[in-house]
């Protein structure tokens, strides 16, 4: 327990101690090197060999042990240099609904003219591997688990390597000041879009609709099952059925329409509706308490704005 506490205190002392803006560079004072368990084993082995060789004044054995020890020490420096100068240029992540893994992409670069294979990138329990080419940049990918909607604060990201011999592990930390957004998790099964205030006269073509709208000439790319074979047989050309679905042009997704549900379920339902409306290509607006209404609009930007607003609603 005491040891663990000490280790944690030591970790807390390691650089960097707080998040900072990107780009971040690992300079040599921010790299730490410790032997791996295997390195300790080899160290003990070499110590035994040295002692034996000294005792018997057996010079070839001594030379062998020293040669190995020299190479091992060179490998610690080499491991240190495999990280020194590594730069975290940027990071990006597409927001995902809570519960799905967030794909965090980190761009690492270096100016050195030696490639750096086998770097391990850790963020808490997630792990990725990356090979940074000489004077180049490369993208590492981490799949962070998400649990809650809202901002996901990044912890320290550890970049480490056991190259070249596996005797020591060198590591350094990046701590980007770059919160990541996690959307609320939409309800899995719930009612369809609220059709309040929709105009039944308006309808729009929808292959999933039920009422036949019209027949039109075949255009390449039309689904084969939408071809009206009987009608086509009477004419010379292929005809395609077009269906329509009566929909209101605009959906209003209003927080206050969902009384009686607890907050998180309300958010989940609204998130589902936002997704549904976006899928169905209907303009929608989102009204949340204490915020100006969003929309009506359609498209990725609006979708993101709505989900972001939902994600950032106060927890409670």
């Amino acid at each position, binding site marked *: 327990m005491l040891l663990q506490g000490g280790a944690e205190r030591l970790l807390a002392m390691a650089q960097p101690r707080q998040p900072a803006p990107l780009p971040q560079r690992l300079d040599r004072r921010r790299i730490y090197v410790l032997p791996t368990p295997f390195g300790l084993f080899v160290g003990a082995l070499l110590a035994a060999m040295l002692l034996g060789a000294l005792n018997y004044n057996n010079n070839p054995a001594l030379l062998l042990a020293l*040669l190995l020890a*020299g190479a091992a020490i060179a490998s610690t420096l080499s491991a240190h240099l495999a990280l020194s100068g590594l730069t975290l240029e940027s990071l990006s992540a597409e927001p995902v609904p809570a519960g799905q893994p967030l794909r965090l992409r980190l761009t690492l670069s270096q100016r050195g003219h030696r490639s750096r294979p086998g770097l391990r990138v850790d963020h808490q329990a997630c792990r990725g591997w990356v090979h940074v080419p000489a004077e180049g940049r490369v993208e590492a990918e981490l799949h962070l688990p998400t649990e809650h909607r809202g901002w996901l604060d990044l912890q320290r990201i550890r970049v480490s390597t056991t190259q070249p011999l*596996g005797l020591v592990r060198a590591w350094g930390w990046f701590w980007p000041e770059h919160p990541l957004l996690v959307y609320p998790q939409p309800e899995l099964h719930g009612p369809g879009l609220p059709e309040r205030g929709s105009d039944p006269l308006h309808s729009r073509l929808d292959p999933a609709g039920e009422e036949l709208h019209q027949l039109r000439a075949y255009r390449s790319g039309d689904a084969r099952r939408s071809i009206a074979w009987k009608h086509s047989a009477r004419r010379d050309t292929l005809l395609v059925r077009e269906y329509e679905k009566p929909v209101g042009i605009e959906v209003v997704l209003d927080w206050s329409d969902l009384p009686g549900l607890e907050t998180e379920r309300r958010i989940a339902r609204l998130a589902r509706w936002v997704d549904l409306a976006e899928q169905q290509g209907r303009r929608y607006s989102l009204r949340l308490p204490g915020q100006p209404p969003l929309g009506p609009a359609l498209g990725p930007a609006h979708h993101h704005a709505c989900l972001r607003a939902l994600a950032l609603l106060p927890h409670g």
Partner: protein
Amino acid sequence: MAEPTALLDAQARRWTLASAGLALLPLLLQLPTQLATVIAASALLTAVVSRRGLLPAPVRLLLVLAMLALIYLQLGARPGRDTGCALLAAMLAIKTSELRSLRDARSLLGFSLFAPFAAFLLDQGPLTTALGALAAVCALLALQRLAQAEGQASPAPVRQQMQGVGRLVLLGLPLALATFWLFPRLSEPLWGLPERAVGKPGLSDTLEPGQWLDLMADDAPAFRVQFQGPAPTAVQRYWRGPVMSRFDGRRWEIDRSRERAALPAVQPRPVQWRYTLDYEPTERRQLVALDLPNAAPPGTHLTADHSLLSDLPLASLSRWTLQSSPPMVYAAELSEPQRRQALQLPEGFNPRTQALARQWRGEVGNDDAALVERTLAWIRAEFTYSIDAPLPGRDTADDFLFKQKVGFCEHYSSAFVILMRNAGIPARVVTGFAGGIRNPIGDYWVVRRMDAHAWAEVWLPQRGWVRVDPTAAVAPERILDTLDDQLGAQGAAGDGGWSQTGQALDWLRRGWNDLVLSYDAKRQRTLLRPFGVDALDSGQLVAVLVLLVGGALGLMAWLLARGERERDPLLRAWHQLGRRYARLGLAREPYEPAQAWAERVHAQRPDPGLLALSARFVAARYAGARHDPASLRGDLRRHRPTSGAPS
């Protein structure tokens, strides 16, 4: 940590097995052939069989038991170094059966590094050393390959792998060498010396017919000598070893009572030979010196017969500085017990020799020297030299002198001494080496084990002990060159026998001996003698060691980091400038554009020079306006932060 238990890919597995096999090789070469063959076969078999999957535990247990039984049968239950080495080899052979994960591979590699180490305990020759070094490098290669597997990096091509390991070894080399020469050695071992010496049996304490046949067929070096000043001529190159004066009818033995007795008076000739002798390891304490050594070097003593004995067994290569002079008069007085010992003969042996001696004594009267001459003349006339002489029967001298008339040094010296004693002349057998080959490359002499020789000493009034070599009377060339030279000398002239390559190899071997094998606490203390420090104490030694190790580490870091240096000189100058401000707590943040930084600095401590410089730098670097990069670089280097008083 998930990776160490990760499964091993086929290539990494092959690397590991190859490296472990190579590590096992030098050790197997040192073990008894039968045992080594079985271990090698089971290692191969286990590796092949367990390629598909783990061997079941009972099978592995059975293997272990079989190996233990085999070692017990071969070496007995005596716990010792040989047994330990055999056990290690056997366990390594079986360990290949559990090679599934990265961790298994690493532990196999780690343990396999003990194999060359164990081999060095048994032998320190060049072959073992080369194989050991090769095994170490291969183990590093395999470790590197495993680390790549752990790092999920695609395996690099072999050439690149070798470069990587070569770089590490070369970088570690200065450190390893500095430590090797300066790490304080133990002058006394912490625990017991190994029970089996590295060396071969040396000159034995006894001499009996047929005993030397093995020795005479061994062309391994017994010792190497370098003369400071003149070297003795061929007839003077007699290396004195054990002196035997007790005879039981068949076997000559050393008279142990004379080991610590007082030395007889010697009146030397004016010639003096000074030389350094590198004595190959043997199981004994017996050393040799040119006839006659003037004094015993520290750590040795002379017996009353001027035979040189070391205080400790010569288990490892040792170096001795000696002086010898040929005697003018050696023991002018012979005490009565000594005289009796030098005339001692068992009753009832060699009647014909006895009769001949009496007959000659009657003919020459009191003249001992004439009797010696007469014997030599007889031998010269009627005897021949051969290493393939038949073993004599009960009366060794009779059989040799009157029936066989053919033999080599052990027959001649023994029969001659028996004849002399029968004639009333005090005589004894001296063994040692004769001859030697000069190595022209290193200007030193090699005396091989096959140069072992036995001759006689007779005591003559006024002159004392006089060396008489009856073998040289028959076949001087066999003694003064060496046996083997005559056999192979048809083509080679001069130094004979050994080809140029052999000479060069021996020279290398001697260099290795000199630099590495014979290096010990004693030589370490005198390491800095060329720089005027006569004897280093351990404190000074540690100080020099720390200094050099620090230097080696620095060199290592510098060599490694050199590759990381910024290559654009303009950027380098800019970074230097940045560091000057960083010392004042005004470091440029990595995300901060040059101009923004300069403005921030300027706002805190007015620095218009920096503003101008950063503008020029940005223009040169990003706008491609490279009017005069050299002057910009110079300005960047010269610029210093202002004193910083806000104006």
